[in-house]
């Protein structure tokens, strides 16, 4: 007989071991699917690895792909710390993309355009996140449901925009007008797509870590998330903390959209985000809500995404495997998290 037993403390090495364990379990579980699709498991994972991390160009492509997920991962990590269940990073990303695209299309000096794009995108994301937060604080509306459903609202608003006023009158394609060339984010490495937004994401992670770990706002976020009653009795304005958290979280998700517009697509179209907002949840959970852990977690998922496409071309395994891996990784991590609070004990017959 086995039994789950509560732990009094969690060893520090668990923070690193658990995500690695979850990723290992995920790859083993998914190898069955690769075999079912008729490909060699080692070969398929090999192609996946070399296409995503095998050479310097592949690495830059993976980093470019990881950038929006670093932002959405940070957005989710901050929100979940306060137990503000922001499932709406996808919609906040789209809002950020639309706002930054609108600003980027206005002729002005490049650096100013980029700054204003970032501000507008962050503000748009924050404004969207404010809706579920306000509904929860004022009317006790469940934030999981409201933030999730808002994603569809924002998506169809974006569609209406690019099918309507923003539609390309030349080609008739549902894509927005491009931003000004001067507003395109500079590329840092000749011959790659490694843009300024990648650096911004890599700087944002330690910055958000600092906010959570070393500021009074971060303290209030942590305490409110763990015990809102104690926070309230301790003089913390719980409602204000939730609103501040939502604004910060939405702004980060909005920046994910800014990076995609300014650094990758230079315009808005319907598939500007292949679910980066939802991937942010997986990233944040793999990182155990630690902003510093968000970077490697996002890079892992990005490698899976870029690698899966190459694997599909080389071995014929459908590229959907990338989404299966994401989902399995989330489930594996949730199971692994159980072991931070519990240990498995063998229960013998009592003497």
């Amino acid at each position, binding site marked *: 007989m086995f039994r789950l037993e509560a732990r009094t403390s969690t060893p520090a090495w668990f923070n690193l071991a658990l995500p690695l364990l979850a990723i290992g379990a995920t790859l083993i579980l998914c190898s069955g699917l690769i075999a079912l699709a008729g490909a060699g498991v080692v070969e398929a994972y090999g192609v996946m690895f070399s296409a995503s991390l095998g050479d310097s160009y592949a690495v830059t492509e993976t980093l470019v792909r990881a950038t929006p997920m670093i932002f959405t991962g940070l957005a989710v990590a901050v929100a979940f710390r306060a137990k503000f269940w922001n499932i709406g990073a996808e919609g906040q990303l789209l809002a950020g993309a639309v706002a930054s695209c609108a600003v980027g299309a206005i002729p002005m000096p490049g650096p100013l355009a980029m700054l204003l794009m970032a501000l507008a995108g962050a503000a748009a994301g924050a404004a969207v996140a404010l809706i579920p937060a306000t509904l929860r604080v004022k009317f006790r509306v469940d934030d999981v449901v409201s933030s999730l459903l808002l994603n569809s609202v924002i998506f169809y608003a974006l569609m209406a925009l690019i099918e309507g006023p923003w539609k390309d009158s030349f080609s008739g394609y549902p894509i927005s007008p491009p931003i000004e060339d001067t507003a395109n984010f500079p590329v840092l490495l000749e011959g790659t797509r490694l843009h300024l937004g990648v650096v911004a994401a890599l700087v944002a992670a330690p910055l958000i870590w600092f906010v959570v770990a070393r*500021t009074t706002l*971060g303290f209030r976020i942590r*305490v409110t998330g763990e015990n809102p009653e104690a926070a309230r009795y301790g*003089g913390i304005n719980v409602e204000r903390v939730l609103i501040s958290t939502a604004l910060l979280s939405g702004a980060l998700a909005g920046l994910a959209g800014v990076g995609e517009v300014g650094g990758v697509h230079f315009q808005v179209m319907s598939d500007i985000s292949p679910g980066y907002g939802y991937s942010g949840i997986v990233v944040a959970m793999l990182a155990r809500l630690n902003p510093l852990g968000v970077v490697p977690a996002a890079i892992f998922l990005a490698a899976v995404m870029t690698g899966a496409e190459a694997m599909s071309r080389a071995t014929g395994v459908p590229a959907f495997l990338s989404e299966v891996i994401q989902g399995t990784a989330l489930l594996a991590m949730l199971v692994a998290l159980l072991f931070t609070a519990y240990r498995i004990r063998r229960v013998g017959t009592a003497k």
Partner: protein
Amino acid sequence: MLAPTEVDGLFSALRSMAAQGLGIIFISHKLNEVRALTHRCVVLRHGRVAGRVDAPASTTSSEMARLMCGHEIVPPARGPSTPGAAVLTLEGISTSQHSGMALRDVSLSVRGGEILGIAGVSGNGQRALAEVISGVHAPDAGKMTIAGKTVSRFSPRDVQALGLGRIPEDRMTTGLVTNLPLADSMVLPRIGTEAFSRNGLLKPDAIRAFAEAQIKAYDIRCPGPMTRAGALSGGNLQKALLARELAFDPKVLIVSQPTRGLDIGAARFIHEKFLDMRAKGCGIIVIGEDLEELLMLSDRIAVMYEGRIVGTLDSADASVARLGLMMTGAEGKA
């Protein structure tokens, strides 16, 4: 929790059941009840049998307390009090029905160097009283002053700034954050003050040093300030909460059920701290149901019934029987 008259009723029912041949196991940390009710008694300490008492009625409570703790327990002596000016006054405070029984026209005052006990059967407005005084809920009517200043905004932060300290009734839900390090819980009410942060930036070293100093001063048993608060025992958590309030020399301290669920040694420590604070001129309100404890600690005892204060007695004039009668609503005139 039962009123003393209800306890008598329960005991007579148990006695008659035992007389009819039923075996009864009665588990309690209330020594006088164990002595009054049981025929035989087994004392447990740290999961082992620490002693057996064959005739509980003829042993003393202190002998049983010694078995429970493994050492002698000397009840603290409450010296004569020299109360100063009023440090907390409530005038005509009434509340709406926010959590259980509402308050109706409650007036009371506590002077510096005085302990005021609030007796009553649970659910007669004690919670609302504690929440108003702690600034968690604003009253609908009435006036409150702390150290001579009228409270204009009811918020935990504002009343704390005026000099109020508070030990909550429910340590785990309203006092501490069990999943975070103990140090976080110990600085929680004052995180925004100069002591622990500046311009929105935490002072991690100051937070840690404060927690370490209090752990040492109050002999809080734990591996260190970064231990998860939830891993500590009830007595050590209560010490931690006491430490975090007393470190800032409150002028008034409000405590609810200060020793509920604590072993006798930890309870004694808490009592001694209250008496120390009283000697230093702090005014203390103790809300409790343990009348023996209230009688031992308090200079005066007010009794609450259905949201009102039905009477206030000097503890010299009070007895368990008299307080018990007042708690059931019988008018408390001498």
